[in-house]
């Protein structure tokens, strides 16, 4: 068949004892969008890294446009027309868009000539695919959605015909994600082939033509998207039926556990990020904070958790005041019953270079359980980590593996296990299921509701409106640093959407 862009035959790859890809066969048809889904750690990123030359397969063959290709490194991948947009962008922050696009693809030693040509080419690409970005803007000044566009431009500039995107929407706001999908549609219309990895089945249903499912290193099924359903895909991924929406009973709120009053946070430049926010969270309820990313939710969480200084306001934890404006001590807050699952697990919640077991005590390393005097009790720490690994089904079950080598969803479970297993009174969680597969989402959601039913107070921040609506007992909407409204979870998506966009809120405030 001549309309196959990529064919993988018998790809096999192990990392030590971990068999990440087992005899994988895959055909991707030219000019289509091909989805790849699978649980965390199923081997999706590994497979794509092999295709892009980051890793070498232990055995197996790759065919590009029907011809066998030996892809030794990313340069050879690019030379056969494969481009990749990484989950974590690989851009030089203090370079301009144009400089980033050219980097490594400069035509001659003399930059000036190349720059003029590159600018022209970039213009053409932007027009052709509706990928507007200012070529002279600095990367660090662009929002993530635009940074991602630069990654796509980079691939196209190198004449990629096949584009791999690994969880591209994980960091995007819903509007940015919609825009990305329009771009992908555009690229497909121009005859490009796209491979899309995502955990969001809705996205798979919306824009892919075909979808392949991986489970525990194996390719278990390929379906035509039109002929399948979210339920079937979820079942194929996990190997059992998955509850896509959690079941939860009525909340029975008790005493106020967390009270926030007039909290205001300014960033280092003096811009107000959180503006006079007040609310309460009671024992036995989940309060969700909805909002488009960047409207102050992150700063609010950080101020409550004691890792960011507030300019004014008070916070009461278990009825006792917390010094949020002066001397902040996250360790003391933990001791007083606060647990915090931070939004950014890579930079805040985990030390990626640590062993799993070392991360399992991060923040709790003062607990005498883990210590023998000034020394770490390595045996106790590993045993504790292994218990959590078993309870939270963290894969691979190896407490000594470097944390960076766990897949995203399993990294998240490491953080959740650490913060939830302590039985805190108040749990604050940012983006609990970012980059996490459906099976794990079900698990995490169940655990959060269990926490509530045990009488814990839960404050939840998520940019996933579905998640907020299915978990929360009350929803606060944040816009431009302010709480612009409170709704019950029965409120419609449209109503919340308007509040999040700041439309309703302004009216309400004016009234």
């Amino acid at each position, binding site marked *: 068949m001549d309309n196959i862009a990529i064919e993988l035959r018998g790809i096999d790859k192990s990392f030590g004892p971990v068999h990440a890809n087992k005899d994988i066969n895959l055909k991707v048809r030219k000019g289509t969008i091909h989805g790849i889904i699978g649980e965390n750690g199923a081997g999706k990123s590994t497979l794509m890294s092999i295709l892009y030359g*980051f890793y070498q397969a232990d055995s197996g063959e790759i065919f590009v446009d029907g011809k066998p290709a030996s892809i030794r490194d990313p340069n050879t991948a690019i030379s056969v027309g494969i481009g990749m947009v990484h989950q*974590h962008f690989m851009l030089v922050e203090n370079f301009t868009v144009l400089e980033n696009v050219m980097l490594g693809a400069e035509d001659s030693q003399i930059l000036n000539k190349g720059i003029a040509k590159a600018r022209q080419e970039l213009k053409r690409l932007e027009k052709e695919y509706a990928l507007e970005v200012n070529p002279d803007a600095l990367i660090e000044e662009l929002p993530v959605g635009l940074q991602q566009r630069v990654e796509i431009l980079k691939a196209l500039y190198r004449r990629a015909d096949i584009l791999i995107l690994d969880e591209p929407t994980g960091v995007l706001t819903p509007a940015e994600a919609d825009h990305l999908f329009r771009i992908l549609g555009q690229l497909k219309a121009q005859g490009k082939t796209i491979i899309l990895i995502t955990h969001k089945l809705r996205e798979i249903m919306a824009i892919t033509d075909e979808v392949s499912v991986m489970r525990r290193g194996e390719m278990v099924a390929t379906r035509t998207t039109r002929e399948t359903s979210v339920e079937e895909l979820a079942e194929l991924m996990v190997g059992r039926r998955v509850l896509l929406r959690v079941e939860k009973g009525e909340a029975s709120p008790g005493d106020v556990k967390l009270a926030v009053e007039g909290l205001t946070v300014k960033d280092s430049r003096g811009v107000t990020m959180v503006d006079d926010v007040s609310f309460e969270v009671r024992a036995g309820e989940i309060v969700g904070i909805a909002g488009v990313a960047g409207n102050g939710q992150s700063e609010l969480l950080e101020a409550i958790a004691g*890792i960011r200084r507030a300019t004014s306001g008070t916070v009461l934890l278990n009825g006792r005041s917390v010094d949020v404006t002066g001397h902040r001590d996250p360790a003391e807050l933990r001791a007083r019953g606060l647990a915090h699952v931070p939004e950014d697990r890579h*930079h*805040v919640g*985990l*030390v990626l270079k640590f062993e799993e077991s070392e991360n399992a005590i*991060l923040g709790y390393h003062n607990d005498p359980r883990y210590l023998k005097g000034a*020394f770490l009790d390595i045996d106790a720490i590993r045993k504790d980590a292994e218990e959590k690994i078993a309870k939270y089904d963290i894969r691979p079950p190896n407490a000594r593996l470097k944390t960076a080598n766990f897949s995203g969803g399993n990294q998240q479970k490491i953080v959740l296990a650490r913060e939830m297993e302590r039985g805190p009174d108040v749990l604050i969680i940012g983006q609990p299921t970012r980059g996490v597969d459906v099976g794990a989402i079900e698990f995490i959601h169940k655990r959060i509701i269990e926490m509530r039913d045990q009488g814990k107070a839960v404050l939840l921040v998520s940019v996933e409106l579905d998640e907020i609506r299915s978990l929360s007992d009350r929803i606060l909407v944040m816009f431009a640093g302010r709480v612009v409204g409170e709704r019950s979870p029965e409120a419609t998506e449209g109503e919340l959407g308007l509040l999040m966009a700041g439309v309703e809120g302004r009216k309400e405030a004016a009234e």
Partner: protein
Amino acid sequence: MSTPYAKLPGWVEYGLIPLINLAVAFLVAGLVVLLVGENPFEAAYHLINGAFGRGEYIGFTLYYATTFIFTGLAVAVAFHAGLFNIGGEGQAYVGGIGVALACLWLDQVMPWYVVFPLAIVGSVFFGALWAFLPGWLQAKRGSHIVITTIMFNFIASSLMVYLLTRVLKPLGSMAPQTRTFAEGGQLPKLDWLLSIFGLNVGTAPFNISFLLALAAAFGVWVLIWRTKLGYEMRTMGHSPSAARYAGIRESRITVITMMISGGLAGMMALNPIMGEQFRMQLDFVQGAGFVGIAVALMGRSHPGGIIPAAILFGVLYQGGAEIAFEMPSISRDMIVIIQGLVILFAGALENMFRPAITRAFAMRGQRAAAVVQTKGA
């Protein structure tokens, strides 16, 4: 995507790659020797012979290595907490005050094994003090340690000139140094250790501070990987934001780490002062603080790597002196160039050959897999 290149087996990572780097460094150094019109093989012979040819030479090599173990550990400890302490030179220099005070006080009345522990405490105290100040300045005032530690090297140098010309110099003497210590201020040599191998230490000042250096290396390993403080230091070194999240106080760890680092640098002073010269002289550190940076880099900040790296630099020092002695057209400065090349290839350009080696291994792995497959079929 965590690691762009596949992981290499341990013996390649910690054995082959450093060896290749070293070989290239010597190759380039050989070219330099050739350029000045000398025979590089002869130079290589003198280097090896000068470092290992006799028990006495080995004694000198290990004497220098002792010094570099201390300063290398000092840099490594700070590095684990994400701090770049380039003030080892000054800290070792000031650490000498502690050693000298202990010796001047008790050398005539006490045996060495009483004076030595006190001298250790003194050297650690003064070295730590000299590192405490930059650490405290960074923690409280945000002055960057790289800048302040360099400045403190200069201040140390002026301070020591003052002390050695005005305060610690015996009356009537012209030389800027303390008086020579009596027996109590002289460390015993490790002649018995070399004689186990049938070697004679001769005049080499190889002394028991070598054993102290080994103990310090073990202590550093325990500190970094087995204590709560080490855990906090590593957390901060890998990710300051995660450390903040975990409630680890950056200012506290900065100050404590710098003091430990300075204390280790300070201990270096024991080796030349009590082990070789039996007095404190001007400039006794002789750049060892800076060599420590290269040693820590080469040893990957791990005690198990620092010891061999320190011995390598000991070889370069001792063997290099031999080259300069035997081949007059190769000056002392040439030796510094060779040392610089080792630092360049083993430290700074450490990753130069890694991609090629990784690729070679990936291909070998594939071929092996292919062989297994055909056999299986």
